[in-house]
């Protein structure tokens, strides 16, 4: 029953996507926009197939950078958020700093990283780690803070130490928040990797993008956008699958979750 419900709930979104596709096809077929500016979906599909192997190879590189950066971002967020939760002073000292660093545009940071670290993978991974770190850290901090105080009292009345309260209560309570943050970060990760590839590199979807842009190959531009979307969705699906495994109890909770 749950399954069929989730299928019917996805129908409107599928309908909207199909409608957009049909509109696009109509616009390009009737040449409402010149075809060299807006390629038809058919041409894009053709480019997708023709450049398939190249796209796939570059997508692999970008995905690797995104995944490595995301992994680093998660690790850093776990350590820092947990330390900030444990030590109030650290929280007061670092929280404003974290917020301020978030106002630095990725676009401004990427060339600096390239200058410092060269054209290899490291500036890409670093940029992804920096952009994904914040949403995860903030959602973890929120998760820790949202722990049921009465449940903490219950554990204290059992004689639990701070460490036991963290392990049995605070960390599991924060998991749902953590995964919400991770989902946002997963989509940032791919975008971050692509942006840093634009600014210098040898391979990856961003590099491919700059190349086809210079050739005014609009069909390939659209093809690479579709691949980026697919890679982002893949990463987000991975996060969702991970969440199901890590938080099996969520399936039984009555509160509807939209994410």
């Amino acid at each position: 029953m749950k399954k069929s419900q989730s299928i019917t709930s996805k129908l409107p979104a599928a309908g909207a996507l199909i409608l957009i596709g049909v509109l696009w096809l109509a616009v390009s077929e009737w040449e409402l926009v010149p075809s060299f500016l807006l390629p038809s979906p058919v041409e894009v599909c053709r480019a997708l197939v023709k450049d398939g192997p190249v796209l796939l190879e570059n997508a692999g590189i970008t995905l690797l950078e995104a995944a490595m950066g995301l992994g680093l971002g998660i690790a850093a967020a776990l350590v820092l958020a947990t330390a900030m939760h444990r030590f109030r002073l650290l929280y007061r000292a670092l929280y404003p700093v974290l917020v301020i660093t978030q106002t630095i545009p990725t676009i401004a940071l990427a060339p600096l990283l390239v200058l410092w670290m060269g054209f290899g993978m490291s500036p890409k991974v670093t940029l992804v780690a920096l952009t994904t770190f914040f949403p995860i850290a903030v959602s973890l901090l929120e998760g820790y803070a949202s722990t049921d105080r009465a449940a903490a009292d219950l554990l204290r009345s059992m004689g639990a130490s701070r460490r036991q309260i963290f392990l049995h209560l605070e960390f599991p309570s924060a998991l749902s928040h953590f995964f919400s943050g991770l989902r946002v970060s997963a989509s940032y990760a791919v975008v971050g990797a692509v942006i840093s590839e634009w600014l210098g590199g040898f391979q990856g979807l961003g590099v491919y993008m700059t190349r086809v842009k210079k050739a005014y190959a609009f069909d390939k531009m659209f093809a690479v956008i579709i691949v980026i979307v697919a890679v982002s969705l893949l990463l987000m699906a991975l996060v969702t699958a991970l969440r199901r495994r890590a938080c099996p109890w969520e399936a039984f909770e009555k509160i509807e979750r939209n994410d």
Partner: protein
Amino acid sequence: MRDAAKTVLQAEGITKSYGGRTIIQNISLTLGEGELVCLLGVSGAGKTTLFNVLSGLERPDGGRVLLKGQDITSAPGKISYMLQKDLLLPHKKVADNVALPLVIQGQDRRRARETALSYFGAFGLEETQDKYPAQLSGGMRQRAALLRTFLGSQGVALLDEPFSALDALTKREIHQWYMGMMDRLELATLFITHDIDEAVLLSDRVCILSGQPGQITAELTIQPPRPRNMSFALSEEFLACKRQILSLLDG
């Protein structure tokens, strides 16, 4: 056999204030082995504050708490405390929730689960061990929380309105079960309730907490002594006790 004359828990002159306002003043009470004592009183009389002090969660401004003669004032972990909500942790399966106090005391998870499971039948929790709390009914959740409280206890438990969230029929059912259970478990219990019928039905003694700051203003032994059954709820003796409590509450 239980021996209510043998004191297990003793509170002496407990006083607690918050921000200059005294919530409870000079409360003394004793709890005998296997005895069930109800604390009855209007909201704001400081019943929960008293429990927070007895459980060791909060330090009293005056007085001390003795468990079998040993001073346990503001030392949590000695007395089992069931707070107002059932507080089953949503992320743990029922068996792990129930076994939690044993795990906190340092037992390994497998053994703690086994100990917990050996009581599942008696507490009407068969087949629930691998479910999550969200999958249980209100009455089941309450029984699971009671089992957890019992497992964590070293003979003494504090229950803060354990059945108040249940509907009338579930409550009746759980009373019936609980009366039978209490006679088998040797658990000295201090029990907060707003429900006069519940207090008379279940307890050996009723203490009335009232005033600002809260004090124990009256104490009443329920007759006949336990074990009793549900037919007691319809008897003359029951009504007599209830009448007496009502007149005490009205001052």
